[in-house]
């Protein structure tokens, strides 16, 4: 009997809606206000520029998606182009980014809903949303994409009502821009890096490309259509927003677009937009669950993760174990609220992903010139090089604390990779070394505590207690390190 496998169920409309729905997160309509505070009326061309920068990389997604139409998106591209640890690292960041993005979207939904129902429990609501959409994802890709299509159409309709209503209002009360960029060129650059996030999520099409019908035609069309629709949508929203409410006022609002809707369409308009943004949160949650599960599935398929994660459900033809594992992690992050801290990891992961995709296009054109490419990046190699430059530009604006977090995530990725790919005994030896290092490090901290170099403001009794505990832990770590290092190779 044939093993169950992912089905090609997604047509052009559903695939395009995956791209649009994955991008329309509720948080995006909040950051528009903050960017307006940074760049003033220049926020309008910046939104267009960000869209065009994103489109550069989307062309690369389209070329690779049609040439290698397998599940996994960026991970699969880098696997073919580079293999080994680089591809594992890409998949690792892609999966983590989507796990965090799922939790963030669900929490974003809960926060937006709390404007209408202040008594709701935000973490509980977020957890329920994640579980509901995990069940929809388990039921089947077609069901997932249908839910995404319906949700996205509702959101687009609400935003269209907002834009048209606000535009009509704007005709009656024109405003005169006072300045283009209140804090100069740096403000414009900062706002560009900041607003690039608006377009993250459209690459979900690539993650689900193994389930797209007629991939040679539908993948590039869906990716480019998503990008064009998003540029048009965000630009029109920003035009009416800064036209009705001055940027400096807009930047002070918790929900800027709902505030603009309140000004232009009255309280009913504010409620309508709030509902629309809440639904957008649902769409992004739905898409991110799908994307993370497909990455885990692909990594498992290639032996980087336990084999059970690439099992496909016999009836629903979905990677049910990968969905469940991702959901467990998402629920933990959504319930603890830790996503507030790791939100930047999402951006970092996406920036790494974008760079890898552009590099993969260049590498594959060199090492596999005869690979069948139903779609080719226009103006090659300028387009992927410009995409890489855009990623480097964005990375310049990443906060140092985010880089530290990224470094730590790379260390964990290294551990996971070697645990899976290297033999048991060698891993044990490695952990023996790690334990010895930890023991020495903790002994050094104990020395600093004992000499009053740190914890100077802490009472002496507490210092003694901490010192004793550190010495105990240090000894345990050193003994554990020696025992692991001396373990026999069986």
């Amino acid at each position: 009997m044939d093993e169950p496998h992912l089905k090609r169920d997604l047509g052009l409309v559903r695939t395009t809606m995956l791209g649009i729905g994955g991008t329309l997160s509720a948080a995006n309509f909040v950051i528009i206000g903050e960017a307006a505070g940074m760049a003033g009326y220049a926020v309008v061309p910046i939104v267009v520029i960000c869209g065009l920068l994103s489109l550069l990389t989307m062309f690369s997604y389209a070329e690779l998606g049609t040439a290698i139409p397998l599940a996994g998106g960026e991970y699969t591209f880098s696997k073919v182009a580079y293999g080994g640890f680089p591809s594992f690292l890409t998949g690792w960041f892609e999966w983590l980014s989507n796990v965090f993005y799922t939790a963030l979207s669900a929490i974003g939904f809960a926060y937006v809903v709390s404007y209408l129902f202040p008594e709701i429990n935000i973490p509980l609501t977020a957890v329920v949303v994640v579980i509901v959409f995990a069940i929809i994802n388990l039921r089947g890709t077609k069901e997932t994409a249908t839910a995404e299509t319906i949700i996205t159409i509702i959101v687009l309709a609400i935003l269209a009502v907002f834009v048209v209503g606000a535009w009509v209002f704007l005709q009656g009360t024109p405003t005169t821009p006072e300045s283009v960029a209140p804090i100069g060129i740096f403000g414009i650059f900062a706002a560009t890096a900041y607003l690039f996030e608006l377009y993250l999520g459209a690459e979900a099409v690539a993650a689900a490309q193994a389930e797209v019908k007629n991939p040679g035609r539908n993948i590039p069309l869906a990716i480019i259509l998503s990008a064009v629709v998003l540029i048009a949508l965000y630009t029109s929203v920003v035009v009416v927003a800064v036209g009705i409410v001055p940027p400096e006022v807009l930047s002070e609002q918790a929900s800027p677009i709902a505030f603009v809707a309140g000004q232009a369409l009255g309280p009913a308009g504010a409620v309508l937009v709030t509902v629309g943004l809440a639904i957008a949160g649902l769409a992004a949650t739905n898409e991110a669950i799908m994307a993370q599960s497909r990455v885990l599935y692909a990594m498992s398929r290639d032996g980087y993760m336990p084999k059970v994660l690439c099992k496909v459900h016999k009836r629903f033809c979905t990677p049910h174990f990968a969905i469940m594992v991702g959901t467990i992690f998402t629920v933990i992050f959504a319930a603890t609220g830790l996503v507030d801290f790791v939100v930047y990891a999402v951006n970092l992961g996406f920036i790494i992903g974008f760079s890898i995709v552009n590099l993969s296009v260049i590498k594959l054109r060199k090492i596999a010139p005869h690979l069948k490419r139903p779609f080719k990046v226009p103006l090659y190699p300028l387009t992927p090089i410009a995409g890489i430059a855009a990623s480097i530009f964005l990375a310049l604006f990443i906060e140092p604390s985010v880089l530290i977090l990224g470094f730590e995530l790379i260390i964990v990725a290294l551990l996971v990779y070697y645990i899976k790919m290297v033999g048991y005994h060698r891993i044990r030896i490695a952990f023996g070394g790690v334990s010895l290092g930890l023991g020495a490090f903790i002994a050094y901290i104990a020395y600093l505590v004992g000499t009053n170099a740190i914890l100077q403001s802490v009472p002496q009794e507490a210092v003694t207690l901490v010192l004793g505990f550190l010495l105990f832990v240090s000894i345990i770590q050193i003994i554990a390190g020696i025992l692991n290092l001396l373990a026999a190779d069986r």
Partner: protein
Amino acid sequence: MNPKTTLSKIVGVTQTAVGGVTMLFAFFIFYNIFDIQTTLGFAEEAVGLYLWTFIILGLLSVISGLFLVYEP
């Protein structure tokens, strides 16, 4: 059970427990339970760094401890 195996099990369980306590401590710091940030003089802006540092150190300890506990 020979003495080396017994020692491995004891040290493994202790190291796993220390790792678990370290990760728990990370959450105590993050959520400032018992006003621990003030007690230990941790700067508020560095709390995220402490959180991840303790979680990763705790995780390493747990994995290393489990190697000793489940030694073949």
